[in-house]
């Protein structure tokens, strides 16, 4: 397998960044990690994952769709779409990599979301296999192998070297573009690390969480469950879970008056918000219970119903650690489990 010594990673980043924009996870002063544009001196974070997921690269929190120029009584429509530049996201974890597959099922089916597609086309996802999963990880529940991440190209670390493997043509092209810096390497130590990681994955507290009780067929049973009241009781109705979630894909479209024109933009929305999908007639989900139920029904029932059984969750554990009141999909799944 092709590899590069870990201590040469910065050289590699410099080489990538010469050709296209490179994003890597870096540590912030508060101890959390976030994706930043690589610049000389940036160190890749050793953290398990970033607070915000990698979906931002393809589906940013706010995005301009179209401008209207206004002069007096005249309105002119301006298409602001520009050909996007190529970019690389490096160090995406297996869970986030899977989230792109889920987002694709929403944005790339007819009618195709051209804003999303442009970004997808121009972005190369280079993933990094996990070595130190956390107690909040449960990607395995959704059939994700944290030691063999998807993405255009995948990387694996044995502690001293980073190994590369292409998963797609785009990934192969990426590896080819840096091949001059790579060398063939022995994977014996890597296999050891992988085996160790796998044994940890099996021991994770949430490893035995089951999806058997969920899926499209369970709609009525779960929708009418009397558990929702208790589960949603403490929900603050904030959007933390939604906004840190790599698979949440709801958005709202709004206009902003700049004084000399209108910018029509879309921004993330959260089904936890009281005015989510508010229409002229009013609001379809009036209580926090209904809104709370919507989020989990969507991930565990409606999404698989429409997408060949694929769940709308990748088990990244972000909502587990970030919900202000520690209510999350795992607690919901356990409460609704059909015995």
């Amino acid at each position, binding site marked *: 397998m092709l590899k590069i010594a870990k201590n040469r990673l910065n050289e590699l980043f410099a080489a990538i960044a010469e050709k296209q924009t490179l994003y890597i996870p870096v540590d912030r002063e508060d101890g959390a990690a976030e994706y930043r544009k690589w610049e000389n001196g940036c160190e890749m974070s050793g953290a398990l994952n970033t607070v915000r997921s990698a979906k931002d690269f393809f589906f940013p929190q706010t995005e301009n769709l179209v401008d209207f120029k*206004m*002069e*007096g*009584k005249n309105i002119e429509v301006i298409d602001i779409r520009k050909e996007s530049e190529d970019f690389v996201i490096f160090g995406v974890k297996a869970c986030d990599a899977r989230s792109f597959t889920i987002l694709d099922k929403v944005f790339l089916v007819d009618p195709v979301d051209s804003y999303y597609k442009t970004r997808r086309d121009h972005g190369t996802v280079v993933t990094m296999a996990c070595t130190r999963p956390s107690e909040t990880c449960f990607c395995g529940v959704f059939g994700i192998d944290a030691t063999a991440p998807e993405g255009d190209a995948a990387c694996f670390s044995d502690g001293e070297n980073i190994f590369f493997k292409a998963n797609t043509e785009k990934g192969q092209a990426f590896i080819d573009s840096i091949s001059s810096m790579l060398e063939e390497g022995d994977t014996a130590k890597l296999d050891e690390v992988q085996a160790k990681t796998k044994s940890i994955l099996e021991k994770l507290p949430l490893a035995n969480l089951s999806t058997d009780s969920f899926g499209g067929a369970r709609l009525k049973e779960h929708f009418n469950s009397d558990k929702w009241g208790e589960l949603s009781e403490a929900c603050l109705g904030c959007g933390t879970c939604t906004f840190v979630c790599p698979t949440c894909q709801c958005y709202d479209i709004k206009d902003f*008056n*700049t*004084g*000399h024109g209108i910018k029509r933009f879309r921004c993330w929305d959260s089904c936890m918000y*009281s005015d989510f999908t508010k229409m002229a007639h009013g*609001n379809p989900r*009036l*209580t926090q219970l209904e809104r709370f139920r919507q989020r989990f029904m969507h991930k565990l029932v409606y999404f698989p119903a429409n997408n060949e059984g694929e769940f709308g969750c990748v088990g990244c554990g972000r909502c587990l650690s970030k919900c202000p009141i520690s209510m999350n999909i795992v607690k919901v799944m356990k409460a609704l489990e059909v015995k």
Partner: protein
Amino acid sequence: MQRIGVFVCHCGTNIAATVDVKAVAEALGHEPGVVISQDYQYMCSESGQNLVKDAIKEHNLTGIVICSCSPRMHENTFRKAAASVGLNPYLVEIANIREQCSWIHKEIATATEKAIILGKAAVAKVHLNAPLTAGESPVVKRALVIGGGIAGIQTALDIAEAGFDVDIVEKEPTIGGKMAQIDKTFPTLDCAACILTPKMVECSQNEKIHIHSFSEVSDVKGFVGNFTVTIKKKARFVDETKCTGCGLCTEKCPMKKVPNEFNMGLDNRTAIYIPFAQAVPKVATIDPNHCMMLKTGKCGVCSKVCSVGAIDYKQQDQFIEEKYGAIVVATGFNPIKLDKYDEFAYNQCADVVTSLELERLMNAAGPNGGTLLRPSDKTHPHKIVFVQCVGSRCDDSKGKPYCSKICCMYTAKHAMLIREKYPDTEVYVFYIDVRTPGKNFDEFYRRAVEQYNVHYIKGMVGKVTPKSDGKIDVQASDLLSNEQLHIDADLVVLAAAIEPDKTARPLATMLTTQMDTNDFFTEAHPKLRPVESATAGIFLSGACQGPKDIPETVAQGSAAAAKAIGLLCKNSITCNPCVAHSDELMCNGCSSCEKVCPYGAITYIDKEFRMPDRTTAIRRVASVNPAVCQGCGACTVACPSGAMDLNGFSNSQIMAEVDAICK
């Protein structure tokens, strides 16, 4: 869809000389919603107004913008013009391109540019203007006067004279107030009782005047034209309707050692008492703190001797509720307590008295029957020292920062009366300076000095020390001769500062009127609205507003009456429609707005709502009384949820102006 008309005035050359009015009209004509944009020489002229009116009719305009002089000048003119052709007057906006543009700028290009921006802001605002209708609220034709001193009496008499019912609430058993305690008045030296008591009698006999004596205001609700007041009639244990005021009970009452408040505690009264001979109403009152029957259940003498059976030991406090259109506050003043003035030995020596005590000592109905005797040994004082400004014009916390205003004159009066009646008495007056602004006041003071040889000494008394021989050593400095003086006085009279009555502050809270730090009521405007409080329908009479002598008090009493009558004459009040209103669905009932409202226009109501989650809930929400709100907008910023907004100056209107100016 809005149909807005823009009318740009040349104001002759006032605007047109520095602003290209045609360019302004042209530019504003392109603004969204504008269907007609014209300029004219004098928009405020008859023909200019007709131009506007015709355009409103012809283009069926939904709003108009006049680019002209200041709205303070002609806003009303154009509002009336709009109203005359059926456009709501509040759909008119003025862009001030004269005072705030053409008159201050010289360059045509920049001035024109600014005028266009000001016009655009007005257009942006008028887009959001809502038609407003001035509301009306009915006026209850009855007035309440709080306080039955000379101020309250005068106000009540004047209001009654105009034909309106008026109630006086007096906390003491009789009306009359401080003036009833005064012996003679300056500068005429006529007898206070002789001029006051006929007015008291007039009050009791006027069928329009209703006196609630021994009563207090316990609650005030409502607003201008429509106050609801709860009056607490304190139990006096005597049936007012039966008591004839014969006084037999007061003669027979065995409890005779109660300090007599009316005579400043210089003599005693009985437990059942009538404060003084000319009291109105002339009804006895039992002092429950001293009545043996009420305290121990043993006595009952008054009940036995009362031939009409007026005594009722079981009487309870009674609360009555009445509606009023106007309220006049006439709570008056009191001399301050002199406990803190050890240097004047007021608490140690019976012969150191306040000026009001001296009034009683000299009064024919006083403890000594009008003969001036020392309280301690009932001898004639031969050397009397008056000390001015005791607690007035004080910069420490013991006294008051203000001048009590009346002391200079009454001291001159006292000095003169004493020298007149007892020519062998030497009288000294220590003063900071003598203030005599008033008709015949300075002449009066000069008479005291020149004709009556009162010794006026500029300087302050440092210490007053009672001596073992009964004399009082007054140590003072004469600032003019720069000498230290010691006077062996027989009597020392302290001109204590006056302060508002203690009941005033809780009353102000009930009335939502404002007070200054000294607890004097604050007038709506110190020069132009001196007898009105800032709260509509509440008027101020007498010393509750500031220190005053009797003529000033009477003048203000009448002025307050005139203001109250002006209000009561109306059947209803037209309200300013630019008032705050609360979006009840947004209001969370936190009470912030209520706390910042200077008018008490905001109250809270519990109201049933259909909630977004399909439940019904009783919620506490703010409710603005449009008749009371004056439209300042303080509440709109205090409200965190944005539930409170202001008609005519709404959040969205102001933000639209901001946007138009900044773009």
